[in-house]
C-alpha cells in the first residue's frame, strides 16, 4: 500500500468513526424525515398533482419524494448511520474492555491527581493491620477489594458494576438488530389485503406489491356485523371467521371472532379486521318532482350508476333503521353521494318512510329528479389486512435490548474506590462513570467513616 493510500484509508476511518458524523447524521435524518410528512407518500392523488407545477412534480418523482423513506438517499443515510455506529464501537470498545477486564489496581500519585475525589488521612500503626481493617471496611461498605503489595505499601482496589460500561454498546447493537429484523420481514414476509363476502371464503390474497399469494389454507367469513353506541358512533366491527384446510374446518379455528384490536393468527399468517362494506343491491325509485314517471333504480354494492341528468351516484352507507342516528325519523335510509357532470359533489340522505323529505331535498337543489329509497339486500363483506412477518420477533428483541441498554446506560454507574496505605497515611480515591454528584456524596461519607474508624481503633 502506498503512503497516499494509507493516508486516505486513515482519514476515511477517522471520518467514519467520528462523533461529528453522528451528530450530522442524526440531525440530517431528523430534518429530511420532515419531507415525507408534508408530501403525501404513495402514488400522488390527482388533486395533489393539479396543485403543483409539472417541473416540481418531475423533480419530486426524480428524488423519490413520493416514497422517500425507501428512496436510495434515505436508505444510504441509514447505511451511513450503521457504518458510523460500527466504526465508533470498534474504535472505543478495546479501551472500555481493558477498563473492565484489566483495571488499574494500584493508586499511583498520577492516578490520584487525575481522580475527582481523593482524601488523605493520617494514621499511625501497623500497616498490615491497617490493610486488613481497610479491606474489611471496603467489603462491608462497598465491595470486596483486590489487595496488592508494592515495596511495603498496600494498595486496595474495589469496584461495582464495571460491566455497565458496556450498556451503550448494547444500545447501539440493538439498532442494528432492529434493522436486521426489518430486513427479514421485508425479504421473507408479506403484507396484503382481502375482502371476503359473508358466506364465502378465500385461499389467496393480494399483497401490497400486487402479487397473488397462496395462503395454503382457506378462510371463510361466516358473518360480519357492526354494532353502534346509542349516539350512533361505531362500537364494534366483528367478523366470524373459520379456517379450512384440506376441505375441513381446522379444530380450534372455527367461528373465531375477529374484531379491531383482536386478530386471528394461523400458521404465522395474521388476519386483522380493517374495513367492511356491502356488495348487495340497494333499491331506489327515481321520479319527477310531482311524483310521476316513477322508475326503479338498482345500485350494486360500491359501484356507481348514471342518473338521467348525467350525474353519477353511489351509496356510501345504508341502514334499516334511521332512528338510531336521527331522532324523530324512522325506517330505512341510505346516504348517497352524487357527482353532477359539472360542479361539486354532494352527499345526502334518502329515506324510505319520509317521501316528503326526499321531495323537499329535490326542490331545494334545483328541479332535479326525486329519489326514494326502497331498502337493500344486504350482503356484507369484511375487509381484512393480512400479514406475515417472520422478522418481527427480531425487532422486538432489538427493542427490549435497547430499552434495557438505555436504562443501564443512564441509571447505572461503574464506581471504583482505591486505597493506598503508605508511611503513616491512608489515601482514598474514587470515581464513577455516571452521576458524579451522587458519587461525591457517597465518597465523602465513606471517607468520613474511614476517618472515624482510624481515630477510634488504630490510635
Amino acid at each position, binding site marked *: 500500500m502506498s503512503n497516499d493510500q494509507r493516508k486516505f484509508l486513515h482519514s476515511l476511518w477517522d471520518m467514519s468513526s467520528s*462523533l*461529528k458524523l*453522528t*451528530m450530522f447524521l*442524526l*440531525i440530517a*435524518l*431528523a430534518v429530511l*424525515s*420532515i419531507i*415525507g*410528512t*408534508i408530501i*403525501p*407518500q404513495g402514488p400522488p392523488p390527482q388533486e395533489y398533482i393539479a396543485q403543483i407545477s409539472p417541473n416540481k412534480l418531475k423533480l419530486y418523482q426524480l428524488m423519490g419524494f413520493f416514497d422517500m*423513506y425507501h428512496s436510495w438517499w434515505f436508505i444510504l443515510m441509514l447505511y451511513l448511520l450503521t457504518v458510523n455506529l460500527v466504526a465508533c464501537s470498534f474504535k472505543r470498545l478495546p479501551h472500555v474492555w481493558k477498563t473492565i477486564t484489566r483495571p488499574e489496581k494500584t493508586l499511583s500519585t498520577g492516578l490520584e491527581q487525575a481522580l475527582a475525589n481523593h482524601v488523605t488521612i493520617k494514621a499511625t500503626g501497623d500497616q498490615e493491620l491497617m490493610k486488613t481493617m481497610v479491606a474489611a471496611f471496603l467489603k462491608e461498605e462497598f465491595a470486596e477489594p483486590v489487595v496488592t503489595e508494592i515495596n511495603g505499601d498496600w494498595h486496595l482496589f474495589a469496584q461495582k458494576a464495571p460491566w455497565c460500561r458496556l450498556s451503550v454498546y448494547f444500545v447501539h447493537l440493538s439498532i442494528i438488530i432492529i434493522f436486521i429484523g*426489518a430486513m427479514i420481514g421485508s425479504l421473507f414476509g408479506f*403484507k396484503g389485503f382481502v375482502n371476503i363476502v359473508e358466506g364465502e371464503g378465500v385461499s389467496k390474497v393480494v399483497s401490497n406489491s400486487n402479487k397473488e399469494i397462496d395462503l395454503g389454507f382457506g378462510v371463510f367469513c361466516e358473518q360480519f356485523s357492526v354494532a353502534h*353506541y346509542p*349516539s350512533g*358512533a*361505531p*362500537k*364494534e*366491527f366483528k367478523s366470524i371467521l373459520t379456517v379450512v384446510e384440506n376441505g375441513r374446518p381446522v379444530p380450534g379455528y372455527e367461528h373465531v371472532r375477529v*374484531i*379491531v*384490536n383482536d*386478530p386471528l393468527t394461523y400458521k404465522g399468517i*395474521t388476519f*386483522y*379486521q*380493517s374495513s367492511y362494506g356491502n356488495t348487495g343491491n340497494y333499491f331506489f325509485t327515481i321520479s319527477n318532482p310531482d311524483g310521476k314517471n316513477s322508475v326503479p333504480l338498482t345500485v350494486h354494492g360500491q359501484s356507481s350508476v348514471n342518473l338521467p341528468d348525467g350525474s353519477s351516484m353511489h351509496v356510501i352507507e345504508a341502514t334499516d333503521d334511521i332512528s338510531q342516528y336521527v331522532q324523530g325519523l324512522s325506517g330505512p335510509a341510505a346516504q348517497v353521494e352524487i357527482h353532477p357532470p359539472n360542479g361539486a359533489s354532494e352527499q345526502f340522505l334518502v329515506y324510505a318512510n319520509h317521501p316528503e323529505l326526499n321531495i323537499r331535498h329535490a326542490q331545494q337543489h334545483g328541479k332535479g329528479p326525486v329519489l326514494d329509497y326502497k331498502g337493500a339486500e344486504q350482503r356484507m363483506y369484511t375487509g381484512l*389486512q*393480512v*400479514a406475515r*412477518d417472520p422478522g*418481527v420477533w427480531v*425487532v*422486538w428483541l432489538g*427493542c427490549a435490548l*435497547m*430499552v434495557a441498554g*438505555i*436504562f443501564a446506560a*443512564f*441509571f447505572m454507574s461503574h464506581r471504583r474506590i482505591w486505597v493506598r496505605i503508605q508511611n503513616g497515611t491512608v489515601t482514598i480515591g474514587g470515581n464513577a462513570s455516571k452521576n458524579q*454528584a451522587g458519587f461525591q456524596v457517597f465518597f465523602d461519607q465513606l471517607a468520613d467513616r474511614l476517618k472515624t474508624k482510624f481515630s477510634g481503633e488504630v490510635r
Partner: protein
Amino acid sequence: MTSSLLFNITTFGYLISMLLFFAFLASRVKALGTAGIITAYGGLVAQSTAIILRWKESYDLGVGHAPLSNLYESVIFFSWTIVLIYALLDLKYRYRVIGAFVMPFALLGMAWAQLGLDSGIEPLVPALQSNWLLYHVVTCFLGYAAFAVACGISIMYLIKAGHEGDQNKNSNGIIAMFPPIRVLDDLNYRAIMVGFPLLTLGIITGAAWANYAWGTYWSWDPKETWSLIVWFVYAAFLHARFTRGWVGKKAAWLSIIGFGATIFCYLGVNLFLSGLHSYGGSR
C-alpha cells in the same frame, strides 16, 4: 364534587403557583418560592383526584375507559405529567426558580383544555379499544413532560449564559437567582435522561400496538415519523456532550428544538398534516 370543578380548581392553583414563582423571582423572598411549590403540589393532588374521578364518571356513563382518549383528556394528562416530573425534580434537587419556567407550560395546557376544548366523555371507537392505549399514551406523555421541563431549564441556561460576562455588576438581579450554568446544564441532561427512555418506550409500545392491531409495526405515518424526528433530536443531544464544539449553548438549543418538535408531533401533526393520512381516528 365533579371532575370538571376539580379541574377548574387545578387551573386556578397552577395560575397562583406560577404568579408566586414570578413574585419569588422578582423579590427573592424565600417564602414566596415555598408558597409557589406548595400551591403546585396542591394543584397536582387536585388534578390527580380529578383524573381518577373522570375515569370513574366514564364508568357511570357506561362507556368506561381511561381518560386518555381525546384531545381534551390528553392535554389535561400532559399538564399533569409536567407538574409531576417537575415535582420529582424539586424533591430531588430543590431549585425552586425552575418553577417559574415550568409552571407556565402546565398552566397553558390546563387553560387551553378548560376554555377551548370539548370536555364531553365519549365512548371509545373500535381502534382505541385496547390496553395498549394506556401503556402507549402514559409512556409518551411522561416523556414529553420531561422534555417540557428540560426546555424550561434550557431557556434558563441560555438567559444565564447570556449574562455570564456581567455577573459581577448585576449580582442581585433576577438572573443571579438562577442556579449556576453548570447546574442547569446538568439538570437539563438529567431531565432528558428521564425523557429519552420514556419516549423510546412510547415509540416501541406504539409500534407494538400497531403491529397487534394492523400487522405493521412501522408505516411512516406522519405521527410515527415525527416521533422518530423527536427521538433523533434527543439522540443528537445525548451525543453532543461527547462531541467537541457541541456542549453548552448548542446543546441547550437542541433541547429547545427537541421540545418544539415534540409539540409539533403532539399537536401540529393533527392540525396541519392530518388531511394527508387519515388514521381512522386511532390517535
